[in-house]
């Protein structure tokens, strides 16, 4: 494996790890349920994306195969993350989860 590939893999792993960590910190730090939805759907998308990318580079660099399956995993993740966020938000609205006081606007009833 070339040195360049090694650097690229390490950088992507660190970057992805940092973003996933920030997403987790967001889960703990943000004030209410709805704001906490943002952490996992966003920061982790980029985090997992770059970890997958480093995996693609690794397997291509050691010449085993080109990692199409990793790209597919990322695509599936991108397709399912919004659905789960939407389901969580709907469920929260249904049982009337309290929002923080400084939230503008209200979830509607229907």
């Amino acid at each position: 494996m070339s040195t360049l590939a090694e650097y690229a893999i390490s950088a992507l792993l660190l970057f992805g790890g940092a973003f996933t960590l920030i997403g987790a910190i967001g889960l703990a730090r943000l004030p209410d349920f709805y704001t906490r939805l943002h952490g996992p759907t966003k920061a982790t998308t980029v985090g997992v994306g770059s970890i997958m990318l480093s995996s693609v580079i690794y397997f291509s660099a050691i010449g085993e195969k080109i990692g199409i399956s990793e790209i597919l995993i990322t695509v599936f993740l991108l397709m399912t993350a919004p659905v789960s966020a939407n389901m969580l938000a709907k469920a929260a609205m249904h049982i009337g989860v309290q929002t923080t006081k400084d939230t503008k606007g209200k979830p509607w009833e229907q």
Partner: protein
Amino acid sequence: MFDRLSFPQPWLSLILFLTWQILSDGLSGGSIALGLFLAWLIPQITHGFWPERPAFVKTWRMPAYILRVLMDIVVASFSVAWLILSPRPPRPAFVCYPLKLEHPLAISILASTISLTPGTVSADVSDDNKTLLIHALDATDDQEVIDAIYNRYEKPLMEMFQ
């Protein structure tokens, strides 16, 4: 009876078949047989859930749209990360977004895009498909959020689906 043996959505079946070949290690008799079976079974099961196909979709505009969304995911992830780490509390807001798109598939693509791009999660669609309820993590001005979504995502989608 022969309805059951057809492929109601040929493109979906083709995508499922190809995806299965890529996921399994190399082409083999087994993977082709199972791929064909899944390509037949999944569209049959999910047939009832699919919205009607729009009359005309300009699919060639899709790659540009996907690229833009990917770029936005990366750029805006930094702003959400910064917001999480900064000591200032976020200013969350519920925004009612007036939908101009009419087709259910287009609306679900827009809703997914809104959820994926950091700072906004789409929470619900009104029963008449006219309004989308969005939760914004850090919004000072509702109109700003609405304009940004309209110009960046809904306009290209409207061009695609009309």
